[in-house]
């Protein structure tokens, strides 16, 4: 791909705190415009999150007084959370999402690692074949044929229909493969001469060297499985097998009688119950986000450049 792009050694991303001598001092106007853009953008992201979390924690009295939303809970209470976990639906769908995410991520890593390693070393097929296959992956097979395939396999209303279509991602494959290709061939050769076979080399030499990239790709897959909602809409009818995203869609976005569907009688206002469900879907992402953020920029850039 665009290999010419980064041939120069990248300047360090962490900046020299001193302004270069040749750079003119920015005018007050520029400074203000920049600051306003950055602050508005940041606030537009943080405010909804704060609003939702605060509202889920606020007590009835404050909510009623504020007319439905609060930006800061004065007397935080977990009442809304206690309520949603009393009914079966939220717990069930959390369980489904966790199961799908865990099994899906492990399978996805297995498929991606083996495929990436096998194609990263010279094998029967050369680079043109792999490039051609990658090229076809730019196109999607289409909604209807995919649906018919899942039905043909008898996976409708089975959790496998949420797992199997997501266990291989072209982007993650490219990132993984370009990392493996950078592992020095001598290491692998020496292991081979010592009598290790390809599986042993992968398990004992290559994977320990690639812990970081495996962690990142694994997190990407996990986030993907946790967030996927359309597959569930397509393939799952049975309410007890809904993942959390579908539950969220059905009674927060579509707002259809939250309490009835949750199988609970509501004492806290519906607003904070809805928000509590939003938070439940949000928290796992917020928890892995620091890990993701630490590594992803590097991964994305490797993938984009070496693709």
């Amino acid at each position, binding site marked *: 791909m665009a*290999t010419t792009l980064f041939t120069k050694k990248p300047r360090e991303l962490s900046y020299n705190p001193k302004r270069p001598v040749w750079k003119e001092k920015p005018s007050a106007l520029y400074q203000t415009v920049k600051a306003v853009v950055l602050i508005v953008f940041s606030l537009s992201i943080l405010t909804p999150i704060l609003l939702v979390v605060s509202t889920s924690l606020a007590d009835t009295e404050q909510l009623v007084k504020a007319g439905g939303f609060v930006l800061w809970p004065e007397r935080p209470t977990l009442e809304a959370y206690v309520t949603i976990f009393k009914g079966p639906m939220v717990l069930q769908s959390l369980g489904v999402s966790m199961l799908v995410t865990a099994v899906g991520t492990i399978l996805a890593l297995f498929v991606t690692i083996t495929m990436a390693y096998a194609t990263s070393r010279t094998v029967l097929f050369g680079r043109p074949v792999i490039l051609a296959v990658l090229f076809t992956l730019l196109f999607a097979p289409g909604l*209807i044929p995919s649906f018919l395939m899942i039905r043909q396999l008898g996976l409708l209303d089975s959790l496998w229909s949420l797992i199997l279509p997501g266990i291989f991602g072209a982007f993650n494959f490219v990132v993984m493969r370009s990392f493996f290709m950078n592992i020095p061939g001598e290491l692998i050769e020496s292991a081979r001469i010592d009598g290790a076979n390809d599986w042993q080399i992968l398990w004992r030499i290559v994977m320990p060297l690639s812990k970081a990239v495996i962690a990142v790709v694994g997190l990407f897959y996990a986030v993907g499985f946790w967030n996927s909602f359309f597959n569930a809409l397509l393939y799952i009818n049975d309410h007890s097998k809904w993942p959390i995203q579908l539950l969220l869609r059905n009674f927060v*976005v579509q707002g259809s009688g939250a309490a009835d569907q949750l199988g609970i009688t509501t004492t806290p206002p519906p607003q904070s119950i809805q*928000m509590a469900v939003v938070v439940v879907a949000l928290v796992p992402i917020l928890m892995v*986000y620091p890990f993701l953020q630490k590594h992803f920029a590097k991964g994305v850039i490797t993938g984009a450049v070496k693709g």
Partner: protein
Amino acid sequence: MNSTTEQAPALPEARRVPGPPGGNAAGSGPKKRKRNKVPQQSFRSRLRRDKQMLLMMLPGVAFLLLFFYIPILGNVIAFQDYQPYLGIGDSLWVGWQNFVDLFGNPDFIHAFWNTLYLAAWQLVFLFPVPLVLALIVDSLISTRVRRIFQSIAYLPHFLSWVLVIAFFQQMLGGAGFVNNLLRDWGMDPIPFMTNPETFPVMVVVQMIWKDAGWAMIIFLAALASIDASLYEAAAADGAGRWRRMWHITLPGLRPVIVLLLILRIGDILSVGFEQFILQRDAVGAGAAEVLDTFTYYTGVVGGGWSSGAAAGLAKGVVSALLIYGANKLAHRFGEDGIFAKQVR
């Protein structure tokens, strides 16, 4: 140059060590052997050598076949009157009839134009935002401010569309935060989320909120790879900040911009499927019907499998042509495009 090309055969040479010694007897006599070429082994001996590697590829290949290539072949039902109980084998072939019907169907035509309309909105208004953000962030001197802003800006990329739409509803919906404030101040609420006429704006705003920060990464990386001495030299020659941006920064970013545009164009007919499915009920099919939602509602919901598949196939073919055309165009302008013309 020379040293790297000579190293190339080293790997296969060494790989043969544990294998049967007669491996290269069949394919390559010393006469045929060119200097820089991997010595040819017979297909069978290479097969034996790479047995375990091929075994490793099996799960991935099985996935691609089952969930990618066979479904692609499944698109043939677009040329059939597909009946689920008959299956692909026994359904009647109808030739181009489904496509003829489709292009006579006002709903499809509407979905088609609506897709193009929304795609144009996205291309014009969505694309520049990450670039501008990246330029601002790159100009920041304080590492701390950069870090903080980047951590905030990347976050929404990892939230699902369901969450994003939920956030927007709570903020801007009819009973949302902003409209509550407006009512308190004695003003009329604004139907941000349900007005079909402003829906394209809403879609773009949502996309910016979710992905503009993330799309910044690649521009930032490209900016960091521009040689700083160029700026210094230009400044010494008296070029001001705007001239430096025009003559150094933008040309330096050109390959990335072209690349991202091509990828975007190939994807453009998808406009943002989940986003539309989630909001179609709120704004109505008039504004939110695109090719993908048409396919979904006709095929899966309505049971019109063949027309759905035909709509999907039409979209796929147009997308493929767009990618191909954009890539060709990029080559013409001397850029690498998605794949470099010559494979090294």
